[in-house]
């Protein structure tokens, strides 16, 4: 069977099974095994244990459970809530200030949390009721949370960068650094949009109430104190990586311990909170890792059948020039982002795209960050916007998916603009890693 036929059969059945509602992890693993059997017989089914065992023993992936754990503790212990109140006091007097504060909160949370799901749940729980109470336009409030929450993937630590780094052999430390510039750029774009929109149309986002604005300086300072612990935690984690104490994997352990300490200091490290954090983490780890396991089996079978080579040859043979191919890849990622989950996209497609990118002479680090920028859009795009699913879980019950998609639309446009900026001005991505890591 030719690689082209294999490609059609494997990906065709993949999408069909996915649409029927088979979990992603089972789909990829089963298809990988089915085609292995079909092409090479029963003797090669050991591929599943070989692949899973390889993933099990990867030191870089150790960061995933620990960063997720850290995020869950911060959520359970109420530290995130403190943060929001502090930021809100300072930004509240602006029209749209609460929504802007939400984005700022997302950036700070992003620097402590590795998954977008946790970010969105937290901000959804804390910021959404607040904004709705103060008469914010629902679309504005929902859009700000969904897009802001996805920023957690760009701002280090980020589980997506860890998975990308492990899959493609890029330095995770450099990817982390590379995500900061675009993360701030995206956050900045969102804030500019929110403030402009609310300035022009104050009903979209009214300023804080008289009482809140007339808080004494002492009270404000008191609230600001609650910023201290989280910021120390961020410095501890990022500092550990960049001042030579720990690898990114180990920094996740420091972060988790730090989060436990923060919760203890805040006196919210109760048995109940700890239990919730442990259980929620275990669930997330299970679902992430089994997606990776399944995708590894699928992609290994596809590669052995000559598929990856076929993709590489077909892409480089296109008469589009390097930039044309790069843009085509981005469009493919956008399309995939509509239906596929972003971990699946990374594990399945990064190994096929990165060799082409290297061959075309692009910087693979830059592409790695671009890849993840693209996944930001995937987070919001219908029918499968994972950001929106998380948000739906914590939003008032009368919020429909359609409303969520509509509210995400302006932010998706901003993401596209941000991505074009990063493509045209690579230093947005590459400057920080080149300065921080020589």
């Amino acid at each position, binding site marked *: 069977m030719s690689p082209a036929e294999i490609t059609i059969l494997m990906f065709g059945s993949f999408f069909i*099974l*996915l*649409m*029927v*509602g*088979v*979990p*992603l*992890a*089972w*789909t990829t*693993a*089963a298809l990988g*095994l*089915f085609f292995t059997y079909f092409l090479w017989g029963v003797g090669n*089914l*050991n591929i*599943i*244990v070989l692949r*899973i*065992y390889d*993933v*099990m*023993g990867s*030191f870089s*992936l*150790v960061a995933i*459970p*620990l960063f997720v*754990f850290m995020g869950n503790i911060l959520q359970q212990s109420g530290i995130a809530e403190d943060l929001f109140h502090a930021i809100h006091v300072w930004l509240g007097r602006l029209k749209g200030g609460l929504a802007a504060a939400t984005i700022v909160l997302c950036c700070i949370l992003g620097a402590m949390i590795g998954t977008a799901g946790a970010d969105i749940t937290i901000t959804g729980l804390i910021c959404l009721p607040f904004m709705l109470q103060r008469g914010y336009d629902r679309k504005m409030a929902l859009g700000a949370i969904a897009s802001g929450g996805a920023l957690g993937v760009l701002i280090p630590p980020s589980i997506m960068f860890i998975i990308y780094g492990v899959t493609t052999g890029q330095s995770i430390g450099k990817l982390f650094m590379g995500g900061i510039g675009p993360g701030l750029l995206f956050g900045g774009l969102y804030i500019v949009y929110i403030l402009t929109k609310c300035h022009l149309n104050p009903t979209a986002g009214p300023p804080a109430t008289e009482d809140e604005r007339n808080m004494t300086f002492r009270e404000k300072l008191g609230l600001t104190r609650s910023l201290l612990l989280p910021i120390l935690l961020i410095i501890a984690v990022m500092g*550990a990586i960049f001042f030579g*104490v*720990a690898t990114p*994997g*180990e920094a*996740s*352990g*420091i972060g*988790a*311990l730090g989060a*436990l300490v923060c919760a203890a200091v805040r006196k919210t490290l109760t048995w109940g909170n700890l239990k919730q954090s*442990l*259980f929620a*983490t*275990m*669930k*997330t*780890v*299970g*679902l992430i*890792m*089994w*997606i990776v*396991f*399944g995708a590894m089996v699928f992609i290994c079978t596809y590669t052995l059948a000559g598929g990856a080579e076929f993709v590489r040859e077909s892409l480089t043979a296109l008469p589009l020039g390097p930039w044309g191919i790069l843009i085509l890849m981005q469009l493919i990622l956008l399309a995939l982002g509509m*239906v596929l*989950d972003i971990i*699946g996209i990374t594990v399945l497609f990064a190994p096929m795209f990165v060799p082409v990118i290297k061959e075309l002479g692009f910087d693979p680090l830059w592409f790695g960050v671009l890849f993840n920028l693209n996944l930001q859009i995937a987070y919001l795009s219908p*029918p*499968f916007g994972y950001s929106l699913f998380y948000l739906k879980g914590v939003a008032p019950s009368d919020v429909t998916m359609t409303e969520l998609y509509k509210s995400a639309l302006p932010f998706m446009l901003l993401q596209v603009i941000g991505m074009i900026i990063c493509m045209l001005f690579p230093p947005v991505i590459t400057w920080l890693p080149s300065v921080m890591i020589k």
Partner: protein
Amino acid sequence: MEKLVSAIDHISECQGKIFSVLLLVVTLQVCYEVLRRYFFGSPTIWGLELTEFLCAIMYIMGGAYASVTDAHIKVDVFSSLWSPKTRALIDVFVTDVVFFLFCGVLVWQSAVWAWEAIASGITTGSMWDPPVWPARGILFLGSVTLFLQGFAKFVRDIQVALGKRSVT
């Protein structure tokens, strides 16, 4: 049957909750390793591998736990439009078949593999050089509980499809 199915659910729940304690162990162990190396210049020879092994246990054991809590990611754009009965029918004939195909092979292969490790005494070959059977054994154990969880779901899907169980 009902008893069996809820017993399986219970096992998956407990497995996830019990092994989640490893998060605390790994957190402390990683910090201990950093402390020893950075401040005392004496890293252990076992730290790295032990961390990997403990995390591997969580990855594997998280499988059935994520299943019983229905956390595994899937596309339900279309399936959410179907009636519970149709959904269950399609699950019986597609989702569960796909699952058993993958998980059956996994149980079988990991059993062979774990047995090989026990029989031949293979080690990791690193400086610490622990045996590999615990890691391979965990993979087998986790595959079995995942398989059982899938079986419980299969039984329920059949019951729903036959109208003998209502979906809550």
